[in-house]
């Protein structure tokens, strides 16, 4: 490729501006404008692409609504009830609270589409519970919370999978179904590791909850536990579109928090709207920038060129997936997840399709990969978050998270090379792929 072509210079500009600390959305818009300018094209095209792209991407509306649903569900008393329910289930095992942390993440994953929402919601509570009376070291508790939060966006609903649905033109419904088994698998892998560590480090057991207490604890958590059921039920019965299901889920979450648990008042309602707006704006700006830059990428025919080059190597689908995984894992250490999904993954997609890799499978693999990036040093967002919540030095959390990273990468390998694990559920619901 010519190093002084408009495209090369524009890409260089985006990289340099981002490295120098400009918000990534702005960097992509600015770089694309530079491209249009140097290529002698109409510079108004940037605005045209951005406006029309945002105006016609109806599926993206699910993002603010899923954020809103998680905000409504994230109130203290709902979390307490969920934790009590999880404790009744798995607290009696050795390393009980550690298992509770994972099970809680799996259940909360069915309500929220964001790992950050999960860590912010339960992170603080779990940290206090686990470190009380010196049961677990703060570093282990923080590492575990970071690792278990990753499950959130893999089990539906999932914001990254909505973004992938947009860039790949794949059905959100099938993608969500594809995330179920991998999400559970990650959870089980973490629990297996906890069971092993618990015996070696002699983790404490929680006082068992008597069996006759179980129905009461379950009943108190019931309205919250129903949320994933309602959400998925609406989507797969075909009653609503995924986007409408997101709105219905947010509405249900609001009803449950306001009327059943009485844990949310007007002030919290406004605060939830505000938090959701803020998060929507920052993700939205990134998407807006990516829409403009993806136009440039398409004009330059980049994905097809790469696909043609790779085709000459006659890769097998497995080799491609292996290389894609390695690339995404490395990029995930340095780049932010949404950016990878919006810029890098679309470039890989035509090659994946040409090689016969299933788009739903590829999407779930890519998202699991990007989620693992959230807990990989040096640029693991969830690690920074837990440093703040738990007040533990980063290097201590990193030491304790390495075994979790190990089992999660093993699970990723399994998901990558056994596509049936991902595709089994979507096919059951009629996915032809």
């Amino acid at each position, binding site marked *: 490729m010519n190093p002084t072509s408009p495209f090369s210079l524009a890409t260089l500009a985006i990289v340099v501006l981002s490295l120098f600390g400009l918000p990534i959305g702005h960097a992509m818009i600015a770089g694309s404008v530079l491209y249009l300018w140097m290529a002698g094209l109409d510079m108004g095209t940037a605005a045209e692409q951005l406006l029309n792209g945002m105006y016609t991407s109806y599926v993206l509306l699910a993002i603010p609504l899923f954020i809103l649903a998680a905000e409504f569900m994230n109130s203290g008393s709902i979390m307490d009830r969920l934790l009590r329910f999880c404790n009744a289930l798995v607290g009696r095992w050795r390393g009980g609270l550690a298992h509770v942390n994972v099970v809680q993440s799996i259940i909360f994953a069915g309500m929220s589409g964001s790992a950050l929402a999960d860590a912010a919601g339960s992170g603080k509570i779990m940290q206090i519970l686990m470190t009380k009376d010196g049961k677990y070291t703060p570093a282990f508790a923080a590492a575990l919370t970071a690792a278990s939060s990753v499950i959130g966006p893999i089990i539906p609903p999932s914001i990254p999978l909505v973004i992938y649905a947009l860039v790949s033109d794949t059905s959100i419904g099938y993608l969500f179904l594809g995330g179920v088994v991998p999400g559970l698998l990650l959870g089980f892998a973490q629990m297996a590791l906890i069971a092993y560590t618990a015996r070696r480090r002699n983790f404490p057991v929680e006082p068992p909850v008597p069996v006759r207490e179980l129905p009461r604890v379950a009943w108190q958590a019931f309205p919250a536990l129903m949320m994933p059921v309602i959400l998925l039920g609406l989507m797969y019965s075909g009653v609503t579109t995924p986007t409408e299901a997101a709105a219905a889920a947010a509405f249900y979450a609001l009803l449950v928090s306001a009327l059943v648990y009485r844990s949310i008042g007007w002030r919290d309602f406004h605060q939830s*709207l505000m938090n959701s707006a803020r998060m929507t704006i920052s993700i939205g700006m990134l998407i807006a920038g990516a829409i403009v830059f993806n136009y440039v990428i398409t004009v330059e025919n980049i994905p097809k060129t790469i696909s043609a080059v790779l085709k000459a190597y006659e890769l097998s689908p497995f080799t491609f997936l292996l290389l894609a995984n390695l690339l995404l894992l490395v990029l995930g250490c340095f780049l932010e997840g949404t950016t990878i999904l919006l810029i890098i993954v679309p470039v890989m997609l035509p090659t994946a399709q040409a090689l016969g890799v299933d788009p739903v499978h590829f999407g779930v693999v890519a998202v699991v990969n990007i989620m693992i990036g959230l807990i990989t040093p040096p640029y693991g967002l969830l690690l920074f978050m837990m440093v703040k919540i738990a007040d533990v030095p980063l290097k201590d959390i990193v030491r304790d998270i390495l075994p979790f990273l190990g089992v999660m990468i093993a699970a990723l390998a399994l998901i990558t090379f056994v596509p049936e694990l991902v595709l089994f559920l979507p096919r059951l619901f009629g996915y032809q792929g």
Partner: protein
Amino acid sequence: MRAVGAWLRRRAENVAAAMIGVMFVAFIIQIVFRYLFNFPIGWSSELTVIMWLWLVLWGAAFVVRESDEIRFDLLSGAMGKRARIAMGIITAVALVVLYAASFPATWKYVTFMKVERTAYLGIRFDWLFSIYLAFAAAVIVRYLWILSHLLRGEEPEQVDLTKSSSGL
């Protein structure tokens, strides 16, 4: 001056919260009408898409603080103060020049869109898309302001790492 700025920003936040609220309510109305009354309405989905577009650009222009935005800060975080200021000046100048250079063509595109209206609500597209002009203008002004601080040797505010990402 600072108090006025803070007051305006809070009102801008209220508007953003209201927009996401409208989006939420419009969706609920749409579902109720379609499935309970068997009466599909089109304006609600149009309204939600408009709210989405406006929320993002309005928010990026008037609501987000520098510390809220998604950026890559491994490098800038590791640099000394002088280097950070130099990097800030370069990015601010580049952004202002490029947004300003594309402004006339953008203006032309947006005003040209007056010939079209949205399907249900009949809103003229030049009005609908004018938010981009406000966004671009606000970004140019904000970065000129940042630039003026940087040129006086004042450091940009420290970025909070946990807030600098989309937080999937």
